[in-house]
């Protein structure tokens, strides 16, 4: 048999005729065809929507990691769990833990480290005029702004000379400026922090808070920060690094020299190697103390990518199942149609239709159903971001109230922007057509294999 014979299927006139025939049959039962199609519409829509949400979530995670800097290694002081101050054990007034100046010096000499940026931060209360605000007082070096991608609204950032002079100057973040100064221009004004006076030299722009990344890094809101030179903080605010806090009638004191050291590495290639060296170095200086976490954004990025893969597979398969359910719906209807139209099949066979003609006819019908459903699904899929906005609006109003909205999951939900990956459109549409073929083939073959004599006799 000449295989070129099948090319005749694709003759435009014949294709148009098959489509017209299929449409006539399908339009005979508009409601039935519409409902059958709906299964595929939702299947394709959910595949695209799920992939869009997965893509959005992973983009969000990636952006957060990239905000931390792909070439950065973060060493963070953490309170070791076994050293939590227990009043019954009495004596231990001051809990000492975390990074020391010595660590900074050691880490700074690792060859691949470009610079090491130390910070020390404490929770505090800032005051201006009659207004107060709970803020985070961050002692840092000028590099801090660049490394954390902060941008300037007015004024300037801290400079090296501010640190050398132990200057009482501060740069405040967006929310601090808004809460304390309202409509006033904060530049040149003086605020009170820990009984010390600081002159405002600059304000940073608003920056979206970062969500926590797994368990390794808690979320950070940069908008309630007050930045002062590290040297000023260490000498004038908490000399010796001891931060005393009053909690419900009792005192607790922590001695921490540095909260965090951000290491910037020459290039992304060596980040993971350097991270190993850093971990070893810290383990040598803090043997068994587990009071320093080393966070490597690059590692988190890799994890996020893996997570995105898993996410896409899981969401995609769930959606794919609904597509298959749609296909089963088509098959079901087509089987019923074949039974209902047995007589028609018999007539067509008597008038000269070959088995292949009957297969072509019924397959065209299922493909018109699934193809149209697929197209509608693609259009709906493109509207995923808008649909998500609407759902988010409802959820914000009715469900995510108060604390839930600030939670990790809530923040992930409210800050995520689903993006429809363009490759998902042909993919979902292709799957819908493929499902039309797969689930249409059996009914079509069943129709073609009917004995024409029996089919003609069918009532």
């Amino acid at each position, binding site marked *: 048999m000449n295989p070129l014979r099948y090319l*005749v299927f694709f*003759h435009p*006139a*014949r294709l148009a*005729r098959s489509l017209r*025939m299929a449409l*006539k*049959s399908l*339009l*005979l039962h508009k409601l039935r065809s519409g409902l059958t199609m709906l299964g595929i519409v939702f299947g394709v829509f959910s595949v695209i929507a799920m992939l869009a949400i997965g893509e959005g979530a992973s983009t969000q995670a990636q952006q957060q990691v990239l905000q931390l800097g792909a070439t950065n290694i973060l060493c963070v002081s953490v309170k070791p769990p076994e050293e939590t101050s227990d009043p019954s054990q009495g004596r231990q007034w001051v809990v000492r833990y975390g990074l020391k100046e010595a660590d900074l010096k050691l880490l700074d000499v690792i060859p691949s480290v470009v610079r090491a940026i130390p910070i020390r931060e404490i929770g505090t209360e800032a005051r201006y005029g009659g207004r107060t605000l709970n803020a985070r007082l961050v002692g840092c070096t000028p590099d801090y702004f660049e490394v954390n991608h902060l941008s300037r609204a007015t004024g300037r950032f801290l400079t090296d000379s501010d640190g050398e002079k132990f200057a009482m100057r501060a740069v405040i973040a967006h929310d601090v400026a808004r809460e304390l100064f309202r409509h006033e221009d904060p530049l040149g004004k003086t605020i009170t922090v820990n009984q010390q006076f600081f002159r405002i030299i600059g304000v940073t722009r608003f920056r979206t808070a970062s969500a926590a990344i797994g368990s390794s890094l808690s979320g950070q809101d940069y908008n309630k920060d007050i930045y002062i030179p590290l040297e000023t903080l260490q000498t004038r605010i908490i000399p010796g690094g001891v931060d005393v806090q009053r909690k419900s009638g009792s005192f607790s004191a922590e001695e921490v020299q540095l909260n965090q050291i951000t290491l910037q590495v020459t290039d992304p290639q060596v980040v993971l190697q350097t991270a190993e060296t850093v971990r070893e170095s810290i383990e040598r200086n803090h043997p068994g103390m587990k009071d320093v976490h080393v966070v490597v954004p690059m590692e988190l990025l890799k994890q996020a990518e893996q997570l995105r893969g898993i996410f896409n597979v899981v969401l995609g398969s769930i959606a794919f199942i609904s597509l298959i359910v749609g296909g089963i719906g088509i098959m079901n209807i087509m089987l019923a149609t074949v039974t209902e139209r047995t*007589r*028609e099949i*018999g*007539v*067509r*066979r*008597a*008038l*000269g*239709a*070959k*088995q*292949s*003609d009957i297969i072509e006819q019924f397959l065209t019908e299922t493909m018109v159903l699934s193809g149209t459903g697929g197209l509608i699904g693609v259009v709906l899929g493109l509207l995923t971001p808008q649909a998500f906005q609407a759902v988010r609006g409802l959820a914000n109003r009715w469900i995510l109230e108060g604390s839930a909205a600030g939670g990790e999951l809530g923040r992930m939900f409210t800050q995520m922007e689903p993006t429809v990956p363009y490759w998902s459109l042909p993919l979902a549409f292709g799957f819908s057509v493929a499902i039309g073929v797969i689930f249409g083939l059996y009914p079509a073959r069943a129709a073609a294999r009917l004995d*024409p*004599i029996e089919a*003609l006799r069918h009532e």
Partner: protein
Amino acid sequence: MKLAANVRDIHKYYDLGSVVVKALRGVSIEFPKGDFVAIMGSSGSGKSTLLNLLGALDRPTYGQYILGGYDVSQLTDDHLSDIRNRLIGFIFQSYNLIAQYTVLENIEVPLHYRPGHKPISSRDTNRCIDLAQQVGLADRLDHRPYQLSGGQQQRVAIARALVNDPEIILADEPTGNLDSKTEVEIMDILRGLNRQGRTIIMVTHETSVARVAHRQVYMKDGLMAGEGLFPG
């Protein structure tokens, strides 16, 4: 005389597992071109089986069937489809029009299945319109079957049977569902076609209908029982 169709000692057995039903047990009959034959017989006589074989819907167990010069007794399924399409025009008792198609589209159906699937040209369409005119339905081309009376539907079926200019026309109880007035109209059309030279083979058990044909053959128990118009 040239033969349109020739059946030589045809047997058709159905194997039902425990028993073998011998529906045809050696039937021979010749149909010259331009013949108009009525095949009669009680139910179970084998006339339906013979009609199925004549219509190339089935293959005989033994024997030979020559149609328009082709031996169609042992062809493949696809070839039988081509034979039905090119050489046979079917007229059924219950018209068997396709519900979702208009009159014109119904007449066109056999053209869809022409060997090679030639697209339908405007000449083809004009031919279909001519045929509709011949059977008196020129003003109903856009009607659907449910908008037509039984007689009109059967006229559409006749036009459809003619569209591929077949060698023989097979009519299975063509007036079985019609009242006697319409019966006369339909038989007039068939007689007219026969006068134009068409070969018509008709299965019926009504003598009034059979009388219109040139000759009448009787079947009994899977065999030819005789020829001629028997009273009653």
